[in-house]
C-alpha cells in the first residue's frame, strides 16, 4: 500500500469496493447469459438429434414439432440395428480403427525414437521427407491409391482400409517432442547396465511417456472412426462398409426416411468418440490443436 491509498478515507474506500463488486456481479451476470445463450445455440443440433431419436414415425412429421417426445420411442435404438446391418458396420469400423491405431502408433514410436534419440547420417533429409508428407493432401493421393488398390485386388478388403494409414508424420513429431524431454542420463545409465537401445525404448522410455501415447492413440482412433471419403471409395459391398458410410446409405427414398431411427443411428455413430473425448479431454484437445486434423 502506498501513501495515496492511505489518504482515502475508510468510508469512500468501502463504497468503492461495493461499487466494484456490483459492477463485476453485473458484468459476470451478462457474461453468463451471453455464454449460455451461445452454448445453447451450439448444442441445438445435438439436442434436436436426441429429441428426434425418441420420436415415432408420426410424431416426427407433426407440426408444430414437439420438444419433448409425447411417447418416447426407445425402440428406435433397437430398430436401427434391424433397418441396416449396423452391427456389421460397427464391427468393421471397430476392426479398422483399432488396427490403424495400433499400427500407426507402432510406426510412429519407432520413427520418433530414431529422430529424438539417435544420431545418424541423413537425419535432416529424413526429417524433411517426413515433414513434406504433411503437405501432400489426401485429395492428391486419392486416385492413384485407388488405382493401386485395384491392381492389388484389395477393393472391399480390410487391408485397403488399414494399410494406407499406418504412418503419420504428425504423430512422429508429437512423440519425438516428448521423447526428447526424457533425460539423456537415463539412457546412459541403462546402457551401462547392458540394456540395448530397443529395450530402453520399450521398458523405460515408453512407460515414461504414457500420457502422450494415450492421446496419440485416441487421436488416431478418432481420425479413423470418423473417416469417410476413403471407405466410401474403397468399399462397395455392404459387408465391408464402415459406420459412417452405412449411415449415408441409410437415407432411403425421399419421404420414407424414418428420421427417428435415423437420428438414433447418428447418435450411436457419434457416441464412441464423444465418450473417449470426455474421458481424456485435456490431452485430446492438445493433440487436436497441434495437428489441425479432424478426420481423414
Amino acid at each position, binding site marked *: 500500500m502506498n501513501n495515496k491509498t492511505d489518504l482515502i478515507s475508510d468510508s469512500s474506500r468501502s463504497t468503492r469496493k461495493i461499487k466494484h463488486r456490483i459492477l463485476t456481479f453485473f458484468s459476470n451476470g451478462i457474461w453468463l447469459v451471453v455464454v449460455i445463450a451461445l452454448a445453447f445455440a*451450439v448444442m441445438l*443440433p445435438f439436442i434436436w438429434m436426441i429429441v428426434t431419436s425418441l420420436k415415432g414415425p408420426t410424431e416426427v412429421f407433426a407440426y408444430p414439432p414437439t420438444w419433448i417426445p409425447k411417447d418416447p420411442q426407445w425402440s428406435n435404438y433397437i430398430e436401427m440395428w434391424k433397418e441396416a446391418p449396423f452391427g456389421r458396420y460397427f464391427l468393421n469400423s471397430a476392426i479398422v480403427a483399432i488396427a490403424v491405431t495400433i499400427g500407426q502408433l507402432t510406426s510412429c514410436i519407432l520413427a520418433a525414437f530414431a529422430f529424438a534419440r539417435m544420431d545418424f547420417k541423413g537425419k535432416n533429409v529424413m526429417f524433411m521427407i517426413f515433414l513434406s508428407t504433411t503437405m501432400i493432401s489426401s485429395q492428391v493421393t486419392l486416385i492413384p491409391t485407388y488405382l493401386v488398390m485395384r491392381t492389388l485386388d484389395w477393393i472391399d478388403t480390410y487391408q485397403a482400409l488399414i494399410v494406407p494409414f499406418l504412418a503419420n508424420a504428425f504423430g512422429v513429431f508429437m512423440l519425438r517432442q516428448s521423447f526428447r524431454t526424457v533425460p539423456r542420463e537415463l539412457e546412459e545409465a541403462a546402457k551401462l547396465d547392458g540394456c540395448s537401445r530397443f529395450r530402453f525404448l520399450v521398458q523405460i522410455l515408453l512407460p515414461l511417456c504414457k500420457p502422450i501415447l494415450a492421446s496419440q492413440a485416441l487421436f488416431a482412433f478418432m481420425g479413423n472412426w*470418423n473417416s*469417410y471419403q476413403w471407405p466410401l471409395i474403397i468399399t462397395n459391398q455392404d459387408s465391408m462398409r464402415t459406420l459412417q458410410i452405412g449411415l449415408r446409405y441409410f437415407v432411403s427414398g425421399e419421404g420414407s426416411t424414418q428420421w427417428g431411427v435415423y437420428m438414433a443411428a447418428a447418435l450411436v455413430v457419434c457416441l464412441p468418440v464423444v465418450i473417449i473425448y470426455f474421458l481424456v479431454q485435456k490431452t485430446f484437445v492438445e493433440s487436436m490443436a497441434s495437428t*489441425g486434423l479432424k478426420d481423414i
Partner: protein
Amino acid sequence: MSIPTEMKSTQKISPQRSLGMKRRKNKETFEAYLYLLPSLLIFAVFTFFPAIFSMVVSTFRWNLPSQPSFVGLENYIYLFTDAIESPIFWKSILNTFYFSLGVPINLIISLLIALLLNRKIRGVGIFRTTFFLPTITSTAAVSVVWLWLFHPANYGLFNTILISLGLPIQAWLRDPVLAMPCLIMMGVWSGMGYNIIIFLAGLQSIPGTYYEAAKIDGANSISLFRHITWPLLGPTLFYVLTVGMINSLKAFTEIDVMTQGGPLNATNTMAYYLYQNAFQFFQMGKASAIAVLLFILMLLLTWIQFRFVDRSVHYE
C-alpha cells in the same frame, strides 16, 4: 569395442578412437533406418508414389475399365475450355472459393467466443467443452443431423423457426441460392471449436503485464484489444486462417451427405467434382488433372503460411 588391443597402447589414440566412433555411428545409422523403415515404406507407397503418379495420370485419357492413352495436357485444356465441361469446372472453382468464405466468418465468430471464454471463472471449462463438441463428432453424423434441421417441409426445425418469426419457409439445401450458405453455416458450426481452442491458447500466451501497463496508462478495453491483443494474436490468426482455408479446399463429407454437389451444381466444389469424375464417371485422367490443380492451390497456401510465420518471428 572392436579396436584391436595392440593398437590401444600406441600414441596415436585419437584416429583410432575416431574410427571406432565412426563405426559406431555407422551402426547407429543402420539401426536408425530400421526404426524409420515402417513409416518410410508406407509414405513411399501411399504418399510419394501417388503424388507423382497423380501428375502422370493427369496426362492420360483413362476411362475405367479401358486402357489409358497419353494425351499430354489435353485434360487440363479440356477442363478449362470445353464448351460443355468447362462451365461446370469454372463453377466448381468459384464454389470452392465461395465455400471458403466460411473460414473468415468462422474466424471472427470464434475469436469473439474465445475472448468471451478467456476468463478465470469457475465452470468456464464446461462451455469450452460445449463449443468443442461439434468439432470432434463425425462429420457424416453431424451432416445427417443438419440435413434434418434443414428439412424443406414445415416440420424442419429451421423452417419452424422461420414460421414462428412470421417468415416464409425455405427449401434450404434444395434451393440453388441457399444451398451453399447452408453448408457454410454448418461448416462454421462444426469448425468453430478447433479455432476457439487455438485462439484461447494464443490469448493465454499474451503476458498479463502488457495489459496492466496499458491500463495504468489509461487505455480502455477497445484500445487494449486494438493495440495489444490484435497484433500479438496476428500469427495465430494467420495460422488459423491458412489451416482453415486448406481444410475448406478438402471439404467432402458434408457435401456428399447433404447435397451431392447439387442442386444444379450449386455446391459442387473442386474436391467434389474430382470425386464425381473419378468415382462416378470413372474418368481418372481428368479427375487427376483436377487433383493436381487442387494440390497446387494447397501448396500455395502452405507456402504463404510459412512466409508469414517467418515474418511474425521477426515482428516479435
